[in-house]
């Protein structure tokens, strides 16, 4: 029962989705939308598991004094502060004691993490008291300060200046810069790997050089280079893509069928 029931579920829902594809009727369509909604809802619970895993791994790192473990504090402070921003918003013009509250929250998180990470019982108790005190302080501030408030029923948090600022000036620049690192890596990868070692590598190298040289204004035959690279991108590329797509399609179909029929069970750890 424990081992077989999940595979029965896989089979039932798999076959259902296959049949659904051929039935355009409203009932089948509704069932389809229903099932997709279910997956999304299960995903929410999974996200909770994920956040728990992030918290646990971060504290374990500190506990085991792994390399760069101090930085785990930054991760968790960032996590909880950003979440706090996402659910609060000021009610008037002034921020009141908002930033004191944020600081208290940070202190509480640090105390909690250190408590979890410390081995010594006495220290553990001390940090537990610290966490409790800051927590009470944060709650008191939250109750008595009415310059800002929590919003759980309406996405005011997205409008929070701090939330926006963290998104625009912390997340976005880092994201764009990580993406921009590719400009450097594409160069170093090209240098390292485009070597005419054998026929295959030479073809790879020549095609790349040809396409890139459409940016060289001093090259003779510039027009033919541009045309040839256009042709490369249009014709052989189309052919290769189609061959790969058909292969991938069949691979996906074959694997999915094996999963539905219970032949492939590796994803449940039973290879």
């Amino acid at each position: 029962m424990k081992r077989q029931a999940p595979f029965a579920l896989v089979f039932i829902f798999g076959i259902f989705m296959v049949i659904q594809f051929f039935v355009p009727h409203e009932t089948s369509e509704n069932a389809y939308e229903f099932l997709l909604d279910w997956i999304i809802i299960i995903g929410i619970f999974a996200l909770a598991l994920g956040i728990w895993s992030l918290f646990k791994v971060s504290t374990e790192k500190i506990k085991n004094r792994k390399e760069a473990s101090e930085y785990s504090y930054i991760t968790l402070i960032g996590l909880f502060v950003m979440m706090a921003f996402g659910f609060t918003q000021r009610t008037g013009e002034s921020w009141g004691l908002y930033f004191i509250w944020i600081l208290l929250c940070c202190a509480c998180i640090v105390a909690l993490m250190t408590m979890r990470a410390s081995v010594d019982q006495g220290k553990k108790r001390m940090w537990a008291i610290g966490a409790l005190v800051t927590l009470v302080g944060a709650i008191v501030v939250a109750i008595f300060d009415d310059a800002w408030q929590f919003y759980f029923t309406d996405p005011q948090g997205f409008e929070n200046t701090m939330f926006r600022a963290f998104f625009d000036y912390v997340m976005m620049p880092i994201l764009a810069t990580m993406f921009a690192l590719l400009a450097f890596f594409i160069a170093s990868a090209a240098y390292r790997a485009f070597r005419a070692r054998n026929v295959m590598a030479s073809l790879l190298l020549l095609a790349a050089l040809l396409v890139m040289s459409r940016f060289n204004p001093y090259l003779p035959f510039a027009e033919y280079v541009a045309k040839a690279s256009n042709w490369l991108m249009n014709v052989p590329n189309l052919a290769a893509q189609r061959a790969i797509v058909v292969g991938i399609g069949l691979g996906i179909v074959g694997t999915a069928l094996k999963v539905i029929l219970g032949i492939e069970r590796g994803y449940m750890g039973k290879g």
Partner: protein
Amino acid sequence: MKRSTYLVFGGVVVLFALSWIFKSSVLEDGVYSNVWEAFKVTLAAFLTLAIFSFLYKDNPLYKFAEHLYVGISAAYWMCLAFWSTVVGNFIPRTFESLSAAFKQPYQPSSWDILGIPGNIIYIIPVLLGIMLLMRLSSKYGWLSRWPLAFIVGTTAGLNFVRYLRSDFVAQVSSTFVPLLGTPDSVSVWSSFDLNATGPVVALLSNWVIFIGVFSGLVYFFFSKEHTGWFGRTSKVGIWVLMITFGASFGYTVMGRISLLVGRITYLFGDWLGIVQS
């Protein structure tokens, strides 16, 4: 941490503060927004440089930016999931009073299964979700396989038919290109004309497409030994693949450089103000 680390860190903080002060004095507007705007721009520039420093080697600045980014982005996705999925997707389908509390228009399901109204059925995914959380318990951990089985089964069925359709059946007819003539229907396939505008080059392109697809597929044959003519065809196949991989690598360079141009323009323009952004 080593002493040099502290020194570097201290130096960076001082530089950051100097840049902040300088920036606040340059910006116009009220004093408060001045300082705040300058802080934000300087912070973004600092984080940009911290990520770029990874190119030299792993260092405390990169570690700082990395860990901060992980935490903040996880929280961001969590908030997004709460507002878009829980509030936007789940709550309106459950109860009218609950949707009213979240100021969402109530979307009752217009049909029912065996007389059970649609909104009650939404208890099932919640139960499955709770079963997933059971994996934290060692005794009932096995229950968490059920929701996973549900997800995998549903999506396997979904992908099975959809990929069979889009990546197989629908691809068949697109290879039907004439190889011997009727140039008019051909010309769409080609952009390579060498001013000979023409049927010849277009036809050549069709041959290339045909041979490329054919030999590429032969390369992907697994159950036949790649020897003899079969092996030679598969070799042609992998050559065609390599040419196109090289070409798309070369083609992508342009886009990546544009991204870097964007970042450097931010540093020189928005932050340092030495070029027009």
